[in-house]
């Protein structure tokens, strides 16, 4: 089920240079593919860190129709990543990079969460994928 939130006003056409400072603030933004076709560039890679008890970034922005690859790491303890609305989930084990891909075939705001009980803050460990 999609949960629509009030959308933040973000940089509309962020390029690679614009992504870094946004990621630092916990937001990943889908940008144009720097002149490359999607086929040539492959899916855009978004690195996500799952740490006690927060994802960095906790908000992932994707353009409608875009395919992205999430590369997840967990520096502390085993974590999970579950994005039910896109049928995407994986365990995230320390020392390994877990990769999942999905195509944003519907617009809206979708919750992802840690579905591996990881400690006292586990139940607050979630984020959103925003598809525009």
């Amino acid at each position, binding site marked *: *089920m999609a949960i629509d939130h009030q959308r933040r006003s973000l940089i509309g056409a962020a390029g690679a240079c614009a992504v870094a400072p946004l990621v630092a603030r916990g937001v990943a933004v889908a940008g144009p593919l720097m002149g490359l076709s999607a086929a040539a560039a492959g899916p855009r890679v978004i690195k996500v860190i799952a740490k006690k008890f927060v994802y960095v970034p906790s908000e992932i922005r994707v353009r409608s129709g875009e395919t992205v690859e999430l590369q997840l790491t967990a520096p502390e303890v*085993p974590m*999970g990543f579950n994005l*039910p609305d896109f049928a995407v989930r994986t365990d995230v084990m320390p020392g390994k990079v877990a990769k999942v891909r999905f195509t944003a075939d519907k617009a809206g705001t*979708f919750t992802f*969460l840690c579905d591996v*009980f990881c*400690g006292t803050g586990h139940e607050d460990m*979630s984020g959103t994928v925003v598809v525009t």
Partner: protein
Amino acid sequence: MNDLDRRQFLQLAGLGGVVLVSAATGAARAADAMGGAAEDFWFVQLSDLHWGFEGPPNPDAKGTLPKAIAAVNALDRQPDFVIFTGDLTHTTDDPRERRKRMAEVKSMVGELKVKTLRFIAGEHDASLDNGKAFIENFGETHYTFDHKGVHFIVLDNVSDPGASLGQAQLDWLAADLRTQPADARIVVFTHRPLFDLYPQWDWATRDGAKAVELLMPHANVTVFYGHIHQENHHMTGHIAHHSAKSLIFALPAPGSQPKRTPFAWDADHPYQGLGFREIAAHRSPVEYALTELPVAKG
């Protein structure tokens, strides 16, 4: 039960095979109205105590469980047994503190008049140590027992931190069900929902559908669970699933808001949304009368 009593009984009917009785009447009195065959009995479900929780959603966290115990002890008719459907304790990363909380729960529930107590684990009890402390204090995390013609099955979908039953437990369940006739009266207790109630809030069991598939050939199956801190009634085919209220704080309806933040404590209506359940098990036809009862008058 004569025809009139049966008709009255069914007038209370809610979901297939299950009777949802107004909390104003009480299951014992409802069962009296339906004739009370010799094999009818009552049990009480307490869920999600979260002993050790501290926070604004319940400023009387230490006082709520004793109030619930007093409320059960004050029932007109004592149940045959009490089932605790998980999250007896609030999670802690400290194994010693976890055991301390469990010991305190054991001591407190020892004040119940009814001495037949059944326990199942919640993820707060068991997911950080695969159920080790729970087993030390309360026994096995999945088991069966029989009572007055009902076969009870306790499933563990929390000792795996990934919320799976696991193939070994599914095999065990399949073997147990093979010993039961197709029309056996079966009640399943579990902590998490066995179906995908709302996976976005972790209200699911990863392989719960496999358990439901195993249960499907049996005509008389009802599931009682906890975890979501509110009543919810759902059917998967002919199998009814009933979640229970919590004894610590209430949670919002599935997907009704962006996050599953607990409802704020209402000083004008303390303990609102908290409670426990009395269940009358009727033999023929197989029906369950559910009565939701408050922790305390607020």
